């Protein structure tokens, strides 16, 4: 037997993902919360709030075309484009004319379901995003990664190590 380590004799691209760095498809949120370009800003706020998201992907014909960030919705509130109902008002405020298309940011962060979690996190950090949209190889969106999924994954991994 020579002293050559096993790792030196293997093609790293041929190896299965390791347990502490699995494919993102195994840790993603198994649903995609999305809106359309015509979705009004207050509905976007509800989608963000109900699903505890900071960014929301915008789909056209099931294809991601952009995203909306919570800061943009809040910005429109500050600018007076959206009105919130006061507690002492019996009537609803006027509906907003601001739609997703008015605050659409291009280039949603798309990752493949087979990419490793570490790669996806690195991409999220590199692009300063809080949402990665997970796609199947045919570009169908199949899930989402947010800081919540990353936290759950990390906590579960730590729990497993502790036994």
């Amino acid at each position, binding site marked *: 037997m020579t002293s050559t380590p096993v790792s030196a004799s293997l093609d790293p691209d041929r190896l299965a993902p390791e347990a502490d760095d699995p494919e993102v498809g195994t840790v993603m949120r198994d649903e995609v919360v999305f809106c359309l370009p*015509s979705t009004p800003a207050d509905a976007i706020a509800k989608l963000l709030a109900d699903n505890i998201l900071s960014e929301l992907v915008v789909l056209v014909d099931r294809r991601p075309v952009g995203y909306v960030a919570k800061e943009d919705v809040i910005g429109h509130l500050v600018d007076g484009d959206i009105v919130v109902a006061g507690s002492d008002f019996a009537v609803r405020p006027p509906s907003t004319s601001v739609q997703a298309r008015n605050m659409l940011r291009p280039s949603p962060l798309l990752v493949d379901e087979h990419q490793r979690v570490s790669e996806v996190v690195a991409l999220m950090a590199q692009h300063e995003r809080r949402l990665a949209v997970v796609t199947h190889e045919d570009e169908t969106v199949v899930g989402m990664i947010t800081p919540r999924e990353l936290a759950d994954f990390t906590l579960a991994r730590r729990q497993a190590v502790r036994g």
Partner: protein
Amino acid sequence: MAELATIASPLGAECDPDDMLGDILEVLRIQDPVPLLVVRGDEVLGTVGLESIVSSFDMLDATSVRDVMRPAPRIDLGERIEVGAEAMRDSSAEAAIITAVEGGIFSKRSEPVGMISAAHVLGAIAKNVVDKAPMKIMSGHRDLGFNVPITPCQRNCPIRQDIATYIDYVSQGRYVDSWSVIHETNPFPSMLGRLCNHPCETDCKRGWDPGEDPVTIRSIKRFSTDFAFQQGLWIDYKIAPAKGKRVAVVGAGPAGLTCALDLRVQGYEVVLYEREAKVGGLLSTSIPPFRFDHRQLQWELDMIMSTGIDVRLNSNVGPGPDDIKTQDLLDEYDAVFFSIGMMKGRILPIPGSDLPEVTDAMTFLRTVSYDKIPEHFPIGGSVVVVGGGAVATDACQSSIKLGAKDVWMVAIEPEDRLPAFGNELHEAKEIGLHIKCGVIVKQVDADEHGNVKAVSFAPLKDLDFDPLSGKLIFSSVKEVENAPLWTVQADYCIFASGQIMERPDELVPVSQRGLLSADRGGHTGVPKLFCGGDCVQGPSFIVDAAGWGHRVARSIREFLGEDMQAAGDRIYQTVVERTDDHRQSEVFARTEPGILEASKRYDMTEVEQSWSDREAIVQSIRCFQCDSVHHYDQTVCVLCGACDDVCPEKAIDVVVFGEDRERSSGGETRVCATSGGDPEAGGYEGEIFINYDRCTNCRICEDHCPVNCITFERVRFVDDTMRVVERPDLRVELPLVAVG
């Protein structure tokens, strides 16, 4: 006006600025989306939220809260929500501390009494929503289905080929139409008709039936392409008016060429940089000539180049003194796309791997592609190829065809788990390839002159494979203790043990795997710079690379300001066609194209043989035509429910308002909405839904419809950017492509 007091929550959990993120992760997760207060003594220093873990994910236990905390402005609880939101926005805060005045006249102080976060503000806005229609949550996994008639084969194809249509056209003898449909998204049908890993066939509905095999989709594509080539046909692309934008594409492989073509057709000026003396990337430098017809590849590349793409051969973009610099490209062009592949072979760092008769498979195949015999190649001698994938098989077969006497493929996986295509291995064994599995390479032995004389391998214990990816689990690779090395005599050793991406320069970001770092749309985070293909994904298939090309072209168009929601300048026509009944195809079994007999496979002649018309048509009518959709004549349908009753796949639901009929198909595609008078007065009213994930287009519903209201139709959209013409006499001499 709503006040902050109406939405504020009590002050939540706290942490110290010197706490590590890893220590507070659980609390952060529990309290999300509300951040933790960062407190020292009685003073609130700021907040820290769960989002902060993204930038320090690998160093949670080494990143202190102080490093990532955000400011927390203080706002009086009597202020309006808008004022609180503005304070948060202006200070880039995740939350604001709500204060109230406490104490008497002389001891009056503002004390924190609560907090608001972005989630609180969004929740306040959300209360405006009364119309729930925009609230859509789309179910994720594709196998839950969207119930739209996208065929499973098309859904699984990275370039979304309209497979059912081009197969149907072949079954009708419309071969040129078939080829034209293929070209809508596939610039290399001659290559993909022979070498595609055909994920479409993996998902073919014909193959879902027990005892049935999928349609031979790949070979039908090859048949149409062979026909068009023999007829001397040509795709004439209609180029959109000039956009006035310039794009550089670096790397003329399948991803780069696909992207370049897409952009050129849309009116962009495209300059293609290729470091080789010919375009095609791995198509023309890594795939040996016996796998394809290089005249057809040349023909397809010519069609792309003739659109007016400016090709600059022998032009390397990299860090070398004579290389073109990335920064210069970024300065000169409106967008730059790197699709440089993984063109360098990996030689494993074992003793003896630096001997002169040791090479890597990529270098070896590249030399062969230029019609040259690699240096030191032992004609009449022994060759050992280390590796068990498709590249290894090509290196083995090429070695045999170049005249090596003994050729060994040696791999760590057992033979039934080798990554190589089974048919290619079978072909190679028929012409004399020896295979040794279950061993790992340890050293290349040299003789007294410093030339390769043998390669030694250590036997391995049984390996484990990941059930999901099918890939090897590293921890299971263990040598058999105290077992002697297995040594095979060799004059030449080829490492087919993976490929390496060569980073152009420091400007282009890389991932932990040593690949270029970009998302699935090719965005890198560097302005104007896009990357895609194998250099981002790792080694993959030609069709994946073409898929990258399409996606990145779309990203670049979006980046350069095109409205991708609109149809742009393209004119789409909707085509509605009746489709054929293919049920008689039950009697036909799947067949594959034949291959040359073994005795004729010792040179570089193409191995796979073409099909006759009859074979192609027989295989085509095996297709279920899953793209056919039910057309109910709503003026005739009486909602009798016969179609629902007879459907063997339970794919149809007939819903009659007022009747309690079970709706079990899960289908959401409404194909009929009809009424036969007021239900109160004895009439009927209802709808019919189909689940196209279940429907196999068997047409039993059509047979059993008592009023003959069901027909099957295809609806497709055709754009006007292509027309088929006879091959022109090219006035411009195009760069040499497929052969050296």
